[in-house]
């Protein structure tokens, strides 16, 4: 945890891109900071990371990070990440998804990556709404909360990303929030080290839309809400469901050690003798 305030600058791309596009006080920047500090803490080199996102405010993150990056179509970050992991298994593959991006249009990819247990670290930025497109409700908008497409309150029930990831077969799930920036950094570090599909859900503030529509106040007020409503997983075990009603549980919620997909895939190639002949030089492949 001893990283300096300046290490993030080593991972930022093109100083001309700053100040970034996010609203003043948007939590996505805090999450990006925690991720970059986790990388620095583990001394991961920029060239060893592939960061992939879809579309959304959250999806802008790779624009600012100096890794191998891919800013793909809405919902498809994990699909692209799967391809990259299988073709370049030595890369640290990080998928950045919003709650709409990762659990609505991209929900299918999310559960199947978990089922395959492929070694992708997924950072799920959960601001409980579609930020970029103007505040439509998302699969994590709580019942009764307001969105531009739920002017009378949301009728639907939200997903719990933890149950989804666990049920589908992921090896790791942790949750934290933008208030808990240090914990978030520690959890992301654990996720980066964990083999298999690992998810860190970072609860974030979209005060511009979710906060305004639900009268939850400014960025500062929403960040303080996270402070007051977080319950650590060890403490939560001793609480009743009523006591936990409007709370969210933080920490490592799930850990498993199922075999990882890309390793099995590599082993299969070896078993079938797929690597015996000399691999074609890359330049030749490009020409065809």
């Amino acid at each position, binding site marked *: 945890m*001893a*990283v*300096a*305030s*300046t*290490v*993030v*600058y080593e991972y*930022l791309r093109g100083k001309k891109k*700053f*100040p*970034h596009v*996010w*609203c*003043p*006080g*948007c*939590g*996505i*920047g*805090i999450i990006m*900071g*925690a991720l970059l*500090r986790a990388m*620095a803490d583990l001394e991961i080199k920029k060239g060893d990371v592939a960061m992939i996102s879809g579309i959304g405010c959250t999806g802008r993150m790779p624009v600012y990070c100096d890794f191998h990056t891919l800013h793909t179509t809405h919902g498809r970050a994990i699909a692209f990440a799967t391809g990259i992991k299988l073709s370049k298994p030595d890369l640290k593959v990080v998928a950045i998804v919003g709650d709409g991006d990762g659990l609505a249009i991209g929900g299918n990819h999310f559960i199947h990556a978990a089922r395959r247990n492929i070694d992708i670290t997924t950072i799920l930025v959960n601001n409980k709404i579609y930020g970029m497109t103007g505040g439509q409700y998302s699969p994590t908008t709580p019942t009764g909360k307001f969105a531009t497409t739920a002017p009378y309150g949301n009728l639907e029930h939200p997903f719990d990303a933890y149950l989804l990831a666990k049920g589908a077969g992921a090896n790791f799930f942790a949750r934290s929030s*933008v*208030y808990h*920036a*240090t914990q978030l*950094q520690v959890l992301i570090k654990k996720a980066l080290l964990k083999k298999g599909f690992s998810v860190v859900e970072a609860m974030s503030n979209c005060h511009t839309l979710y906060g305004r529509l639900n009268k939850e106040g*400014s*960025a*500062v007020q929403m*960040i*303080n809400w996270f402070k007051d409503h977080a319950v650590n997983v060890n403490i939560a075990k001793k609480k009743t469901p009523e006591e936990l009603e409007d709370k969210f549980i933080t920490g490592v919620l799930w850990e498993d050690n199922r075999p990882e997909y890309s390793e099995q895939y590599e082993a299969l190639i070896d078993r079938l003798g797929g690597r015996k002949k000399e691999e074609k030089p890359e330049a030749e492949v490009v020409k065809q």
Partner: protein
Amino acid sequence: MAEENQIQKVEPAEDGEEKAKKEKPKNPNPIVIFRRWCKACGICINLCPKDVFDADEDGYPVVARPFECTQCSICWLHCPDFAIKSTEK
């Protein structure tokens, strides 16, 4: 990154001088704000446990009480715009 990680040494103190020795020399410039990247969101001003910042008339943070700063890191860990640098960490 080694030089940023230096820990201030606390030497064993002589009798009677303990308090004086333990007190670190105060840094008059512990925190730097890059105003060009700052969006005046107010997070640092509100989360600082030592009330180091004041807001100027446009809402931008100003390091008003530098000697109160304990280098707790809360402000720069929570700045969404990477606009805060600690001069000690």
